[in-house]
């Protein structure tokens, strides 16, 4: 009786062993799909959403925005995974996320939704400002503040690279450029706006020059960007600029910066969180 039981057990173990082995043998499908997201923050959420659908592996690449998944094609399809990812809020190759899920994403992760249904996703005021791209505003021959703006952008680029030395040099250039502005070229409103913020701009820029610590530089840069924005609203740069917003900086209080490109490159976190942020406004 006992030996019989033994055989039975041995048999059972073989059966289970074989079936487990067979499980490994099943060649799981590996595929990659484009999944949109703005900063690296949501990497985990995307991967989690994919795994929740039953995928055995999911990796999202920040740089390429590609999600690589592994799954058992006998049990599910790639569609199931992409649907799950879209339900979590992320548009991808096959599915666009439900509006509610998109709206629930962290500010930082909100990518620009493709042209599709742009009218619904942007608040109406913003849509107008984009649509009525006011026909060629009285083109100013040459912008007196162009060199100021350029210094600012150079400094910002240095901060993106977390290069505090170059940032300091560019800050110095900014101070010089500010001092070189010919007030008489500006009209009254421009003059008033410029004069209002000039002292603060100079202080912030000097501080960035004096301190060598990147964290401090970024702190001053945040204030400086706000002032610079106020001026740019009045004295428009020659080419469009993008007002970007990082909702995470300063313990979630958020901070603005200005960029010439539409692509998000975060000067507050640099490579740590390069694409955290969102275009809030475009000045043209």
């Amino acid at each position, binding site marked *: 009786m006992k030996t019989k039981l033994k055989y039975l057990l041995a048999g059972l173990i073989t059966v289970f062993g074989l079936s487990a082995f067979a499980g490994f043998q099943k060649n799981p499908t590996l595929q990659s799909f484009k999944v949109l997201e703005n900063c690296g923050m949501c990497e985990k959420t995307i991967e989690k959403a994919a795994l929740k659908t039953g995928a055995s592996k999911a990796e999202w690449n920040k740089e390429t925005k590609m999600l690589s998944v592994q799954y058992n094609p006998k049990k599910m399809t790639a569609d199931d995974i992409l649907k799950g990812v879209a*339900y979590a809020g992320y548009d991808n190759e096959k*599915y*666009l996320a*439900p509006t509610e899920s998109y709206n629930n994403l962290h500010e930082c992760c909100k990518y620009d939704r493709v042209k599709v249904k742009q009218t619904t996703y942007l608040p109406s005021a913003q849509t107008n400002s984009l649509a009525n791209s006011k026909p060629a505003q009285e083109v100013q021959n040459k912008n007196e503040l162009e060199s100021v703006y350029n210094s600012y952008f150079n400094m910002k680029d240095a901060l993106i690279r977390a290069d505090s030395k170059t940032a300091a040099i560019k800050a110095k250039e900014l101070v010089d450029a500010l001092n070189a502005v010919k007030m008489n070229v500006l009209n009254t409103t421009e003059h008033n706006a410029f004069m209002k913020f000039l002292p603060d701009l100079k202080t912030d820029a000097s501080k960035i020059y004096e301190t060598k610590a990147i964290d401090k530089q970024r702190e001053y840069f945040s204030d400086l960007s706000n002032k610079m924005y106020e001026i740019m609203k009045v004295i428009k740069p020659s080419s469009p600029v993008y007002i970007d917003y990082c909702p995470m900086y300063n313990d979630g209080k958020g901070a603005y910066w200005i960029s010439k490109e539409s692509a998000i490159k975060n000067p507050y976190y640099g490579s740590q969180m390069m694409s955290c942020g969102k275009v809030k406004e475009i000045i043209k």
Partner: protein
Amino acid sequence: MSDIITYNRRFLILVLILRLVFVQTSVNAQNLVRYDLHITDTIVNYTGKSKKAIAINGKIPGPKLEFTEGDTALIYVHNHMHHETSIHWHGLILPNEQDGVPYLTTAPTKPHSTHLYKFPIKQNGTYWYHSHTMLQEQVGMYGAFIIRKKESAQISEHTVLLSDWSDENPNQIERSLHNATDWYGIKKKATQNYGAAIKEGYFKTKLENEWKRMHAMDVSDVYYERFFVNGLTDEELKPEKPGDKIRLRVINGSSSTYFWLTYGGGKITVIASDGEDVVPVEVDRLIVGVSETYDVLVDVPKDSISQEFLATSEDRIGHASVWIGNGMKQLANPLKTLKYFEGMKMMNDMMRVNGNMRDMGMNMSLQQMDMNAVMYPEIVDQNKNTEHSEHGHDSTHSDLVTLNYAMLKAPKKTTLPDVPVNNYHFTLTGNMNRYVWTMDDKTISETDKIIIKQGEITRIVLTNNSMMRHPMHLHGHYFRVLNGQGEYSPLKNVLDIMPMETDTIEFFNSAYGDWYFHCHILYHMMSGMGKIFTYQNSPANTQIGDPKKALKKVYQDDKRFYSSAEIALESTGSDGEIAFANTRWLVQTEWRLGLNDAKGYESESHIGRYLDKKQFLLAYSGWDYRYRNSIESEKNIFGQTNTKDKRGVVCLGIQYTLPWFIVADARVDHTGNVRLSLSRDDIPLSSRLRAWGMLNSDLEYSAGLKYILTKYISISSHYDSDMGLGAGLTITY
């Protein structure tokens, strides 16, 4: 996804041949439209497991049958199965013997035989057909029945036939429901257990709920693996004209699932219900009851995008989608999981301890006040948000327009002739715990047919005193729903009635023969929730033979016994119970077997009958046998002495379910010994953990825990004052 593999080669060949033979022939001269329906047993694989099902012409759902008003339908039903079947033409006005209710109106289609249905098509709209035999509808026997108007409308259209699928054999589903399984609750994450109640701050609610003898309630009872639209989880529709409207003919062909309909691409315009046109009404969403049909218009997206027409099961565990448009798929907002404890709280307010419902003076009717709304996150959370937050720019949900019956208006007057009116008041009743569903506390077989006279009006006031909603369907007639639209009251053949609602319907007695009026939730109908209207002086129905014999067959459905068992195999021995029960009767035997003579063996067998409407009271008689090899005799708390040494007694007793589901049992045996006991089973501690306890006047007691592994197997442990502490497995069937 849906591979239909026929049973064997023979069938495969048969089906191939039949497909060749199956042609829709229309003989123009007489407007005869012929269809051949071949019913076969089949194997389907929707979830990765092969399961038995029934196909019509090799498909699930069956083919869409299309007619034009004025045609004559000639439908040959070929039954290739080894068991009988039938087809009921849902919503159609036809001669009684064509209605397709086996034994009541129509001869059943016997195995390997053919039945011919022939009837004139006197109406137009969206209808469907399904088996009216046992539970065949659940496993695939349904299809769309579309009748076009003579003047065809120039609008593209599509039929959306919704259904539910479970991998489980429907007979097992039915048996499990009658045995109050909570396996479906576990699968749906809806056990509403004490652990979850405490965690979410609803302990008092749960306690009160059980005090009022209510088990965890859900909006539906069965766990379904899949929901389908035309047999698919996702169907793609690429209309030719973007920006146009498309007419969707929505049919709920499910066995027990209500569906919420929402559309990502805009509003939904309801233009017909149950086949009859209504004045178009624009809504954000609507619920379509089991067996109801709605015709709706939706926009085809202009841009290169595919919008989701979403049918979500009422319990929100799944959905099926129709993708409308060409391009990327834009998901519609999903309906989030129900807040069960909020629903429980509401139920507590509505339920009296005696098991009757009270509407708290709200005069509810016509789906206008959806009490379940307290469970809908999209409404509850939205209301919270708008109260607390300043940026309430997304206030879309608080003004969601949901269709209700009061919004339906007939485009033409529907007034009935001025003839005598016969009034009836029916109360829908039910016992969730034993899954007995009734009208006026009586099953179909316990009620006499209701005799009506041709040329008169039948007016029915319906009150739902049960805790579930019921889609009440009348065969062969349209009824007017008296919904405040006066002369323009809409015509329907299914009325969804929510708990505590009272609605009035009326119909003109224009036919002859016997007609069913029943709840269309398959498992409710089978348990006996319905009535039969019979026309006075009807001609004899040649299809059903001896009417008395035939009626017996009809009544058999709700008289059946369901078996159940719970067998514990533990280190101290075996405890167990096997039972057979139907609407009123319970036959049961239980045992406690020790490992040796000293521990003893006992068994008790009873036959009992439930006496009261709510089925809390059971009277029984039975026979006990005990054997234990010990000399001492025992005294009970009444000072009576008994020995368990080889004792056989005959006993009489009663059981009453007290609040909090404590079952009090009092019995006396032929020697005069009295025993009182109190017990409580299945206290849901967590999703899968159950506790129970028992105490009796012989000073025996026991208590145990059970952890549910699968539907049939649990790990269990209990302490018994006679047997001691044991642990092992419990098999629940």
